[in-house]
């Protein structure tokens, strides 16, 4: 569909066995798309915070929000698209630096992207980079000269700017 938008949905849910499966199962059962999903406990150990990114129309996102809200394990949720918000994703990239000159080139790109080299071996550099999705995509593109061995992305996390907050 042409009117699809990327929505970043933040969910506070009970930190209980099966809760994540209820959320992901809802998406597969109803045919909704998941671009990324990331989850971890919050400062309150009884709660988990989940950020889910989906590409869908306005009608579908309304259904998604309602259906998620219906899940007994879901305490609160918000569509971050309705608020000014910040989105971040972390990526770890392992590159092969054996080719002559590639060490310098990788080091230079790492600086430009304000990334960090967090592990070094005689054949590889492992780089940590944080940012929004397009920055991470751009970094991978810039690295295309070097041989990328492995990429790990966390999926997006989001938080509203200012005093809007998703709390119990």
């Amino acid at each position, binding site marked *: 569909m042409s009117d699809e938008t990327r929505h970043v949905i933040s969910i506070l849910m009970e930190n209980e066995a*099966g809760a994540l*499966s209820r959320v992901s*199962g809802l998406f597969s*059962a109803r045919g909704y798309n998941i671009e990324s999903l990331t989850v971890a406990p919050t400062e309150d150990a009884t709660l988990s915070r989940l950020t889910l990114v989906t590409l869908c129309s306005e009608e579908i996102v309304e*259904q998604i929000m*309602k259906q998620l809200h219906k899940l*007994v394990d879901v*305490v609160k949720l918000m569509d971050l698209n309705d608020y000014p918000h910040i989105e971040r994703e972390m990526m770890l990239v392992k590159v092969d630096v054996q080719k002559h000159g590639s060490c310098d080139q990788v080091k230079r790109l790492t600086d430009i992207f304000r990334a960090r080299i967090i592990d070094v071996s005689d054949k590889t550099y492992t780089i940590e980079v944080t940012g929004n999705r397009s920055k991470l995509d751009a970094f991978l593109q810039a690295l295309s000269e070097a041989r990328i061995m492995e990429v790990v992305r966390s999926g997006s996390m989001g938080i509203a700017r200012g005093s809007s907050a998703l709390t119990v």
Partner: protein
Amino acid sequence: MELTGAEIFVECLKAEGVETIFGYPGGAVLHIYDALYKEAEHVNHILVRHEQAAVHAAEGYAKATNRPGVVLVTSGPGATNAVTGIADAYMDSVPLVVFTGQVPRHLIGNDAFQEVDIVGITRPCVKHNFLVTDVKDLAATVKKAFYIASTGRPGPVLVDIPKDITAARCEFEYPKEISIRSYNPTVKGNKRQIRRAIDLMLECQRPILYTGGGVVLSGGAAELTQLARALKFPVTNTLMGLGAYPATDPLFVGMLGMHGTYEANHAMHQSDLVIAIGARFDDRVTGNIEKFCPHAKIIHVDIDPASISKNVKVDIPIVGDVKHVLRDLLDELHSRKDWQTADISAWWAQINEWRKADCLKYEQDNESIRSQFVVEKLWEVTGGDAYVTSDVGQHQMWAAQFYKFDKPNRWINSGGLGTMGFGLPAAMGVQIAYPDATVACITGDGSIQMNIQELSTCMQYQLPIKVITLNNGYLGMVRQWQEFFYQKRYSMSYMDALPDFVKLAEAYGHVGMRIERPGDVEGALKEAMAMKNRLVFMDFITKRESNVYPMVPANAGHNEMILV
């Protein structure tokens, strides 16, 4: 005092006021069955012959009484056999609490004997489910299960109890109140939307009340009747909503949807205000969504916000319990001095014009029995006051069209999931809830065989159900579609080896009757109804290739009905 988990389980049922449970024992629930043995005078356990039937029986019980049905089955196959019933209850919003045994905790995940991840399997078809991991949580979990199942939009809740937990001991205290921070269903409708709804109702020229199972579930039939009669608006019911408005009332235009009446569907199509109450715009109701109610503004009252604007965009959404909202609508209406609706006499004249199509007409000759005739005669003989369960197929549609339900909770069928095999066990649940009531199960020669083993349960508990089998030797609805859409290629819709149902009923200890001539229908029904204490299995040999009319073909609009 310290109790075992099994004893706690039984105490919880007593605290919830549960009088009857439906189940089947097995290894993982032996401690529980032992505890039930000692409490048999408090909790009546009905032993079915297949776990699917336990769930359907509990559904029948719940649908007739609006109280949660309770099921107890063992782990593994006991639990998986219950899944169809659970999915059925989920689709039709039936309050159920299903307890499944589980292998002991230390064996979970080990592929132990009769182990299955029933919490995982049922996750998409329950309102919620729990695995009890500590005996100390058992009582609170049972309390939560009943609370969730019976509040908000009702539905099935499953509680999986590992065997070792039923043996472990702890202090028992049943929580009086429970609150779940993430679960707070809205009961009261929004005041402003209620005012706007009444504004529209007083302005519209061509209104129709389209009401569904939510009216029955909320116990709001009396309020609906008051509202409709005050406004003198036409009323149509969904399959699930039949009985929520008296079918013999002149304002009633019949069921709508695929096999709804000509007048109901045309009224929907031409309406300028559709007032949907406790209905969910199911595809069998709407037909082609692009062609659905092209001229209407839509008011939608539903307890489930996710049902609103799911299939059809709504102009005035009102989230709340149907009964509460109907009361508020009535209060708002009567708070307006000298209120009056627009003149809708032209609309009624049009509806009465559509009624002249007499879309349900059929002809009963002297040759072969028409199913419609059997249902009409059943309605007459029972004074319209029976509890009627049905299976799924042509007979279900004929029952819905021809048994004129004047009261809610009397029509008990599988609407959403369309589960063949539902009717007989559901009738058992109804008969157990109301031992003195007339309970008829309208079924077909295909459906009845999907849970026919329950005739044995009926004998054990002396349930005097009247089984009305409309036997045409076909899977009739499949055959009808094959006739219409597959050039009569009757692929696997023919039953070639039907049993002798009379002998079969007799083998189970019941009365069997075969009725082959139209002239015998009424007498046979009277004879069967007179046998107050016996299950009578009536095998009506009906016209072989008969179709359900009228019909909105799949993907057509409400104004594109096939009449005959």
